[in-house]
């Protein structure tokens, strides 16, 4: 059984059909990269997977660990093991970073029938992961993402991922806007999470991140459809030729569906 199985997924938002029939299988241990031009539906796919209600699924099915993902609320999906690193992490004034992550972790642990962690159990763990991501301890007591730089926000997403240990991590352009040092740190954090029973979907615009996180598969998403899939070298080809040629090649090979 695959970890994630997406079948003929159609989704709309704000009255527009954005995803127009996505099929994708992800097995435990695999890293998939989804690339594609602006507005092609990458974030939409990520949001559907994390069950944002505004994204309405009109057709198709998603199985996660064999369960019907589309029947789940966002918090249920998270408790079942889905984690999305947001393309634009949200600032939440007044909610402390550490308190937030502990509340989330305890919600997930409760769902799975595990004990609650008090601050004493939690903090050493949290501190350790912060060090891994080269984050200053002062972030612990600051409000979630409030006043963080772009890079700090992205690191904070990976920190949350490291704490919540999902079985499927979806990284939505976690690399965008990062300088090379920050990119290395983030990639290192992600690589530390790679394991045989965890899968990742890495959404990106650029090949650059894939120099650090080598994907097993690359998929090209154009206008709500996966127009090509391949191995890691597809990313290099994309980098060279650009989306336009891939897109037109795809159109030539499948004119009926255009």
């Amino acid at each position, binding site marked *: 059984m695959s970890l994630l199985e997406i079948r003929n997924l159609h989704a709309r938002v704000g009255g527009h059909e954005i995803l127009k029939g996505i099929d994708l299988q992800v097995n435990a241990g695999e890293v998939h990269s989804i690339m594609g031009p602006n507005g092609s539906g990458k974030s939409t796919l990520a949001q559907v997977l994390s069950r944002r209600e505004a994204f309405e699924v009109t057709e198709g099915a998603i199985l996660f660990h064999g369960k019907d993902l589309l029947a789940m609320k966002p918090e249920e999906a998270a408790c079942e093991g889905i984690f999305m690193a947001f393309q634009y992490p949200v600032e939440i004034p007044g909610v402390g970073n550490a308190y937030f992550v502990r509340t989330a972790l305890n919600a*997930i642990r409760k769902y799975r029938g595990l004990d609650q962690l008090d601050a004493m159990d939690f903090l050493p763990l949290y501190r350790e992961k912060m060090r891994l991501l080269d984050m200053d301890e002062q972030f612990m007591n600051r409000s979630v993402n409030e006043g963080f730089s772009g890079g700090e926000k992205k690191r904070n997403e990976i920190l949350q991922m490291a704490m919540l240990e999902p079985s499927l991590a979806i990284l939505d352009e976690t690399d965008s806007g990062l300088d090379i040092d920050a990119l290395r740190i983030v990639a290192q954090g992600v690589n530390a999470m790679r394991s045989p029973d965890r899968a990742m979907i890495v959404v990106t615009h650029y090949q650059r991140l894939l120099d650090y996180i080598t994907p097993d598969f690359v998929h090209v998403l154009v206008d709500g459809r996966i127009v090509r899939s391949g191995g890691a070298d597809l990313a290099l080809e994309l980098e060279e030729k650009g989306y336009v040629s891939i897109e037109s090649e795809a159109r030539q090979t499948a004119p009926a569906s255009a």
Partner: protein
Amino acid sequence: MAVQTAQLESYLESFTDFVRATAPETPAWLRDLRDTAFARFCEVGFPTTRNEDWRFTNISALARIPFRPARETDRVVAASLASSHLAAWHMENALSRLVFIDGLFVPALSTIGALPQGVVIDSLRNQIAQRPAFVAEHLGRYLDTVRDPFCALNTAFLEDGAFVHVPRGIALERPIHLLFVSTAGPAHTPTMTHPRNLIIAEEEAQAAIFEDYVSFGAEIHAFSNAVTELVARGNSNIEHFLIEREHLQSFNFSTLRIEQARSANVASHSLLAGGALVRNNVHPVLAGEGGECLINGLFIGSGRQHLDNYMLVEHASPHCASRQFYNGILDQHAHGVFHGRIIVHKNAQKTDAKQTNRNLLLADDAQIDTKPQLEIYADDVKCTHGATIGQIEDNALFYLRARGIGEIEARRLLLEAFAGECLGRIKSGPARDYAQAVVEARLFALATPAPSPAGAAETKERNWEEVG
């Protein structure tokens, strides 16, 4: 508008009874004070919404009910209340705790504690008897009974309340807890109380004083109309708290009149969580140079609660700063009001006045009226005001849920964060903890979608049979 005849008769009858019952203990100066105030009340009557100060708050429901003052005979019943009945409102770490049942001080339920030399914490009634000259010098001196009929009414029925005197240079490290319990009384008839507090902080004194309004017993109409006169002498440092969490048949009116001398630093923190119709007046006068006043508040309403905050900040001296921050959270059909009036008098140059009112509306039918009113007669001043009205942010809610936090818990977290802005402005640790617990209980009830009305957790109906 004059008081309607039927209302007048009810209040006149109450006043006549009251005067007769309290005659033996009433000095002439106090009799005059009451008489003048009652005459003023009769003259102006209850305000209507045509009055600009009452534009958003219709008090006709209150005016219709024939409230009677709690009397001596009721106190027998009050005395049968045990301290265990008050356990829910216990403040850890309080320096003193004064308990008032239906407006009257109950020594058996109160603890004054060991006080530093010269500090007086007592009932006003005792102090009127023991130190009439000192009390007479201050009582009613700062309050405007002409403009506000509720202040006139309070003064007419003035009998008891708290008296706090902190001498020069004394810092009280722990808060003073004043607990005002309104009950249905043995007769289960609508009762009115007019608590009157007098707080005098001499130069360089420091104190934190908590007024806490709660209900006990059956949910019968009750009208609490409190007035506090707070005198902050030069360089004193005072934190004042008001918590309103009575049951949903309660009318709670209160006026905090602050007189600030040179370089005095006063903070007023209000937390409105209960009551059906609540009016919270805060009226600081910055009378000495370099004074600083923080006016911080949070109001949380649901059901059909009406929570009205009326601020009147008077800058009467140069180089003073005032900061108003009020946050409102309104659900269901609740109606909130924030009326922030700032008057900068002619000589109050270099005034720095700021006002911010932020509101969260959790339901389509919830309503907020927010109105700044700046009257500036000096030319070198800085006055800013701003108001926002919003909802719980969908992005933030989704972010929390996407991390595994359930919807109710996520809403609660966001509401607590919004309320936390106000709690964060409280300096005194024990007072903040106490206020925070009240806020958390109230928000828990609000975030949890249940038919239970506001404040039910704290104001569970208890019967007199259980007590007696």
